[in-house]
């Protein structure tokens, strides 16, 4: 009797656990589901609340693709995100290597300077940076989007943690074998840190792809900007073209969603470990 009651209690508590998680999952996923569903509905059906599209169509995608220079903006976003990610990885690999390999004067001060950048909100430094970019003549230019972001304090800190976990004795051994500093970095350490470097790289790529603020500031023409800024201009320009807008939104999210589909576990882990900004 008591046993059955206790088992029932256990079941209820398990059911409650799952119910709360299912509710949370629904809240998280429904907007994305609704985005995709709306984008696939024909114009006549967009304003109905049917939860599944009855007649699938790609009209909205065609419309969105023609309404704004989508291909051009996607290319821009890809170029910016790839170059930026690569540059951030390289600069931070070198920096993390310097911090772990040598003891040198001012290392903790320099490390502090890098770590404390998270206290500097973008909005506080945007005007001088905007002036600098204008001075270089890089407004409406991909260089203006990329160059200010070739180093990432976040990446330096994350890679520093990864490098620190690499055994010092192995470095010493390679050094005694006559490895040069560069050789040590690229042939001894890096092959063993592929996994953390890759997940930090993915995080940097997503961040760069999703960035909206800096393109908002330094680009004006649709052909010269990234897909996020383009999407924002599409949002504010259209009247009631919800199907097309959802199609454009889906396209803009697709690369990140695909990466997430393949690598969610690594992405979640590095986000939870890595942080917010």
């Amino acid at each position, binding site marked *: 009797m008591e046993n059955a009651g206790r088992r029932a209690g256990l079941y209820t508590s398990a059911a409650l656990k799952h119910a709360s998680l299912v509710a949370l999952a629904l809240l*998280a996923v429904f907007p994305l589901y609704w985005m995709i569903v709306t984008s696939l509905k024909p114009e006549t059906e967009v304003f109905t609340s049917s939860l599944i599209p009855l007649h699938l169509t790609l009209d909205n995608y065609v419309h969105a693709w023609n309404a704004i220079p989508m291909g051009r903006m996607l290319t821009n976003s890809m170029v910016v995100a790839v170059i930026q990610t690569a540059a951030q990885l390289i600069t931070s690999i070198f920096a993390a290597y310097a911090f772990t390999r040598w003891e040198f004067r001012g290392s903790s001060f320099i490390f502090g300077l890098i770590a404390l950048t998270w206290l500097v909100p973008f909005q506080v430094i945007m005007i001088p940076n905007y002036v600098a970019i204008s001075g270089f003549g890089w407004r409406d230019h991909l260089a203006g989007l990329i160059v200010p972001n070739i180093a990432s304090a976040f990446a330096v800190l994350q890679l520093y943690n990864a490098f620190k976990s690499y055994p010092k004795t192995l470095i010493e051994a390679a050094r005694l074998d006559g490895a040069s500093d560069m050789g040590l970095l690229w042939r001894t350490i890096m092959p063993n840190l592929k996994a953390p470097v890759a997940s930090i790289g993915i995080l940097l790529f997503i961040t760069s792809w999703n960035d909206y603020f800096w393109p908002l500031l330094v680009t004006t023409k649709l052909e010269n900007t990234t897909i996020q800024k383009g999407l*924002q201009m599409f949002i504010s320009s259209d009247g009631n073209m919800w199907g097309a807008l*959802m199609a454009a939104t889906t396209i803009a999210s697709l690369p990140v969603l695909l990466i997430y589909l393949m690598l969610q576990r690594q992405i979640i882990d590095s986000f939870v470990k890595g942080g917010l900004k």
Partner: protein
Amino acid sequence: MSYEAVGMPRHAAGAKPKSKERKPFLLRLGRIKPYIYLLPALVSIGYWIYKPLLQTFQLSIYQWNLLPTSPKQFVGLKNFNQLFSLPEMGIALWNTLIYTLGVIPFSLIIPLVIAIATDNIGRKASNIYRALIFLPMIMAPVAVSSVWRWIMHPTNGILNKALTDWFHLSEPIRFFTDEHWAIWSITFITGWKLLGFSTLIFSAAMTGINKEYIEAAKIDRAGSFQIIWHVLLPLLSPTILFMLMMSTLFASEWSFSYINVLTQGGPFNTTTNIYYLLWTYGFQSFNIGASSAAAAVFFLGFGVLAWLFMRLTRKLSFFDN
């Protein structure tokens, strides 16, 4: 910002023995090596973060309209004196407080409750839930704005349709244009994006807790609430403080994109916040002096807050072991 990084300068600051004896020439040359490796990152961070930070302080004592051809006029501390009498400053500060407090249920309270309630749920199920609830975090803010704009549209959005069906509203809620609703809509979207992420942060912290503490409390016949209050919450306090600090420091930064895409600070400035104000001063009214002075004050203010939080975290960090 990194969870570990907050505490990191501490580790890095550990005293390093410095040898005073004279080294051969080659070794001394070798001493500049670390600086060479650091150079690319340092130059970039220095040029694009610290230099503009100093320039912001410099610009705060000038009057300027952003045109390269027009001269900057030195005005001393006038920008600072006028700061709090500027239009919208009062409401922007008030709204910042609303955003900060409004985000806390999403970044702290609900995640904490769910993480505690759903600890040890079975690995497979938990992986599926994790993948789903984390999804908003990787979405671009503009895409998120776009989707919620559609869902919360007054006449055609599915949310208003559902609400009308369920509660027989006399008229739909204008989520982004009604001055009583707009700020809560933006707060909700900001929180929605954080909810899953924060839950996973707390879940990870729960997993890290040594279960022997809970067993010991159970043997002492402690009830569930006693365990939560006297065992779990103290053990989770570093994470709680961390999320609280993040919410306080960044709620206004996180909400910026949604404000800019969805309401532009309106209706009647009811959704503007201090960071959005910097944006409008700088790039709409071209009052660079006011924007820079406000930026300087907010930067210092948040710096003090961050320092206080970190001191508090350090004080509580003995729970860690």
